[in-house]
């Protein structure tokens, strides 16, 4: 067996009978809502580990080596907590960046086995147009053969992803403009709950419109001059509010409109839809195009997206960039080295924040505040001219 075959085979372990499978996956933002809908539609039993927290981080840190990145530590903790709750099939998603992630799975597998857990690990490669492999992996864990259930599961899943993305975007827009603090947040939470509880395809398809209408009802100050800050960086820390210490909320409350460049639904649509049906320019493609002056090649992780987004932002009237990444993240260290030049030449303020287990909240907020002040001053100057 050659290396590539071995690698493929190790991606789908098969020691547990399908009917006994209890499935779990790592936590990241709210991907649990759509995934739950999908798997339940396929007739699977699932366990959802508690959301990321200090406790989870502690478990992760205790069971992993020092030099490894933060996302791994949390993923591992999610697995441990899920296994403790009875899970026996662990799903893992490998993003397209092909960084340390591939190695992670191997390591998590070994660590968990040496801790005495019995389980199967099933790996989903989320590269370009991987619909077929994804279906195979879902078939592998559920053995569901009913096409209607697949249809239902995937429509529910996709529509819920889009609903959550819509709610998030509206939250980012409304929060800095709302007249009564907390309105937007409450509306968002409400819709997350409804999205989670929706169980029919028709209902799920309606969600997006309903969410838009509901957010419209929140009283806002339409004339307020709100600076726009792009949030960019490493995939996991961007999407996980625990790890990024809810930076979106902090910024919103400081009167800033956040625009996060990686939205789960967009990304998923791009990686799963066969390229035949995908006509929009993907985020990656746009990034490659805009980063060209600074980067001639992608180098793993989200580095080229980071650079491309910064240039894009500068040329589209965005006021500032906050770049976040986990400590010792290799692609983002490259990005940190490139950003000062981009910031200077494209004339846009950029701040890089590195997150690790010890990141203290107070110092973190102070830095964000100082940056927001700078961005606001710059925006004012521009408005006066």
């Amino acid at each position, binding site marked *: 067996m050659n290396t590539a075959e071995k690698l493929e085979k190790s991606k789908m372990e098969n020691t547990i009978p399908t009917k006994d499978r209890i499935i779990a996956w790592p936590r990241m933002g709210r991907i649990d809502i759509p995934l739950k809908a999908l798997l339940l539609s396929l007739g699977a039993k699932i366990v959802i580990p508690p959301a990321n927290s200090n406790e989870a981080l502690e478990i992760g840190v205790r069971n992993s080596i020092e030099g490894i990145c933060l996302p791994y530590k949390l993923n591992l903790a999610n697995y441990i907590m899920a296994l403790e709750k009875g899970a026996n099939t662990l799903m893992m998603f490998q993003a397209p960046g092909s960084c340390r992630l591939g190695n992670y799975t191997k390591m998590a597998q070994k660590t968990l086995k040496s801790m005495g857990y019995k389980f199967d690990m099933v790996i989903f490669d989320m590269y370009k147009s991987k619909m077929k492999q994804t279906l195979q992996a879902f078939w592998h864990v559920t053995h569901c053969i009913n096409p209607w259930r697949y249809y239902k599961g995937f429509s529910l899943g996709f529509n819920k992803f889009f609903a959550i993305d819509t709610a998030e975007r509206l939250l980012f827009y409304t929060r800095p403009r709302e007249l009564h603090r907390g309105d937007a947040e409450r509306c968002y939470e409400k819709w997350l709950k409804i999205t989670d509880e929706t169980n029919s395809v028709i209902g799920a398809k309606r969600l997006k419109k309903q969410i838009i209408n509901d957010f419209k009802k929140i009283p806002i100050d339409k004339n307020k001059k709100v600076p726009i800050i792009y949030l960019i960086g490493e995939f996991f820390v961007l999407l996980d509010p625990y790890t990024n210490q809810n930076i979106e909320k902090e910024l919103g409350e400081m009167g800033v409109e956040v625009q996060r460049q990686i939205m789960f639904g967009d990304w998923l649509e791009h990686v799963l839809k066969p390229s035949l049906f995908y006509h929009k320019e993907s985020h990656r493609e746009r990034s490659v195009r805009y980063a060209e002056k600074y980067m001639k090649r992608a*180098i793993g992780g989200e580095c080229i997206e980071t650079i491309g987004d910064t240039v894009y932002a500068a040329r589209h009237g965005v006021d500032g960039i906050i770049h976040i990444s986990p400590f010792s993240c290799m692609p983002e260290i490259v990005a940190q080295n490139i950003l000062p030049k981009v910031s200077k030449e494209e004339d846009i303020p950029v701040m890089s924040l590195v997150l690790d287990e010890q990141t203290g909240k107070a110092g973190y907020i102070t830095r964000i505040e100082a940056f927001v002040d700078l961005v606001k001053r710059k925006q004012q100057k521009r408005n006066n001219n």
Partner: protein
Amino acid sequence: MTMYKKYKQIGIPRAISYYNNYPFYYGFFTSLGLEVVLSDKTTTKTINEGTKYVVSDTCLPIKVYTGHVVNLINKGCDAIFVPSIQSTGYKINNCSKIRGLPEIIRNVIDKPFTMIEPTLDKTENISFKDFCFQTANALGITDSDEIEKAISDGWKVYNAFFEMTKSGVSYTEALENAIQGKFVRKTVGIVKPLSVAIMAHGYNLFDDRISLNLIKKLEKMDVRVYTSLNVTREDSLAAIDQIGEIQYWANELELTGTAAYYLLNKKVDGIIALSAFGCGPDSLMVDEISYHCKEVGMPLIHLTIDEHTGEAGFVTRIEAFVDMLMRKKRSVLAKPSAQKQKTVKVSNVGKFEETKVLASSVK
């Protein structure tokens, strides 16, 4: 033969891929009629210079690399070779920082020079030959016969170099001889009481400033040192396979491969892992090997270095490790029965025909 050459010189930073591929680079560029200019050996000044340009979280070898590029620019080199070695096999990638060397250099150094930045990316079907053609084309050389010949000249120097190191000739000596077209063999050395294998990137281990002369220090303590240069690519791959791992990183052979090879053939009393502080790939590879070491009771020490690592503390750690190995060896020799119990399955690693000798990180 092309009549007109755009550049007369090519500058090669004495860092990163230099330590794996320089014999090839030398043969290749010389054959193309270019004068090869090397940056000066790494000193503390090189490190300080590099540190000025990159963010502080960047690992030491990249700071050093940047320092070398600056050194070449100061020497007046106008074409500098900064390759991007993305992957050396299908989905066998390098660390992002090595993949992105030209991206870093382009954006941190604000001085005029031409960067020759070929890409090697087997995942995307860009072969080593393509890599060489890109290089030559960027230098204004387009005659494919001339380039093909340069490639084979490059391999000649490389293979001579590797034949020498494999037989035990030191890195520096083999390099000097290979470049002069000479060939030396190691005269059988005195048997030393202890042997260790070092798992480390060539750019860390063979850079005397970065490694703080680790090899020489060990030799002074009467320890025989084995490195990735003593193991063929085939043996290295076989060893990784045999311990049940899968090659993931492009430079895994220098680390996991070398360690696994010596772990299996039991020629050594201990393993030393040397890596830069904050290195992502190394933290994973060393962890993997330490797991296998524990299983068979092979001592392992992990030394991490950065620009602030002090010589004294470093020496103390090595000495303590060597002492421990010595005590262990004595006690085992005193009780031969104990040794038998510890014996693991003897492997057939090392029996492979040494057919082709190729650069571990390029081909």
